[in-house]
């Protein structure tokens, strides 16, 4: 009986820890990353393309926000061939505050600065 109780408690703890660990990304994930994943467009690649064009986080934030609010082919960082395979993204209906929050989280998650080290 004791053994069954310990096993049940351990299972409950594992579920709780797992739930906490993915709480924040889960929102970003469901709001943005999930779609990218299903379409097989790696978010890290998208971020690098943003980085390559806009250089600073501030400029990226502005560019992403305006694009998500009113997606246009001309404003996209993806090459024109990309749209032959993928449809044009729909306008984001999310509230601005939340959208800005997710953009910030997105940049933080994929930021290369944290990953740079001296050999």
């Amino acid at each position, binding site marked *: 009986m004791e053994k069954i109780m310990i096993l049940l408690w351990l299972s409950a703890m594992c579920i709780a820890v797992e739930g906490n660990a993915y709480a924040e990304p889960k929102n970003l994930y469901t709001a943005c990353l999930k779609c990218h994943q299903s379409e097989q467009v790696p978010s*890290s690649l998208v971020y*690098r393309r943003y*980085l*390559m*064009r*806009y*250089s*600073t986080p*501030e*400029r990226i934030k502005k560019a992403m926000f305006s694009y998500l609010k009113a997606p246009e082919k001309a404003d996209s960082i993806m090459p024109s061939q990309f749209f032959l395979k993928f449809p044009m993204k729909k306008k984001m209906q999310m509230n601005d505050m939340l959208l800005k929050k997710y953009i910030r989280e997105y940049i933080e998650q994929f930021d*290369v*600065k944290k*990953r*740079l*080290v*001296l*050999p």
Partner: protein
Amino acid sequence: MQSERRSLLRFLLIYMGSTFLLFSMASWLFYTSTRHHLLDKQREVLKYESQKIESALRELHQSNSAILHYPVSKIGNSAIYDLDKHYIFGTFAHPPQLGARQKHTLSLISKIEPYYLGAAYLLLSKPIDYTPLLALQRNILFFMLLAGGFFAVLGYFLGKLFIAPMRESIKQMNHFIQDTTHELNTPISTILTNIEMIETFGECEQNKDELKRIEIASRTLSRIYDDLTYLNLNHQYHRRIIRLDMAQLIEERMVYFAVMAEVKHLRIKTDVKSGVILEMDRNDAIRLIDNLISNAIKYNKPEGELYVRLTEEYFMVKDGGFGIKKEDLKIIMHRFKRANTSEGGFGIGLDIVNQVVNSYSFVLQITSQLHQGTEVKIQWKK
């Protein structure tokens, strides 16, 4: 001899000065251009290294690795900056502001486009390698010293070469004066002795005035002879310093010049203190007194005043003659310089006075007012 050395020194100074200036300018131009060239060579290395880092950044941008190893340069420090010139990453201990100048460091800022890893600028710095610059400075200094030595020797010989004709002329003139004075001595002595004999025996009473003129002319000649001999033998002449009664000597010389003064009808005033004893050579004293008194007679106005004074402190001769211009007062003591050419002479009188004054460390003072007269004072003690 002294003026010759002075001329040579002046020539050398001007020659060496201008040569040094010219070489300095040439060396400076050469140094500047070579320095630029050497620094450009070091910049080229930076540029090449910068391209290597840029290429490594591109590879890193495409990497999916969780850890990105920043490309480290072997020659110096590097850093990447975003479009707003904010520091992203680098190898500097204290990341510098982009564009800030660093001492003794060679920096290169390259623009990166597209912005791999968000980097818009790449800064690459390395310490300046001063070794070739120091070697260049050493070479230039060595060359300057070598050239300076060569041109100094060349200048010395050139100067000697230029002065040679002048020296030859002076030598010839000295020989001429020496020979002339030697040849003049005997006839002058003969004339003076014979005049004295005629005066003593009084055989020529009706030609007394003519005889006086001959005597004056002969004495003038005799004095010129003495002056020239003094100048010629000045350096070889052995002085016999004795205790000299200056009052007695001045009285003697006044008698000697009495005939000359009489012809000009000068009013002679003397204030000679007896018992003034100086330790000096008799010939030096005679040259000093004679030249001052003869000048005072020569440049006096007819019926002018001649005032001679001797005290324990000084000897003074004052005339009421033409006077000397203010600007001429500074050069009047130089040999062959004459303030007034209306009377005969060589311009050696005051030069002799000056030489005697310097030899005994006396002090010579000349004050003069144009058309009023001149006062020459020699102070025995400073």
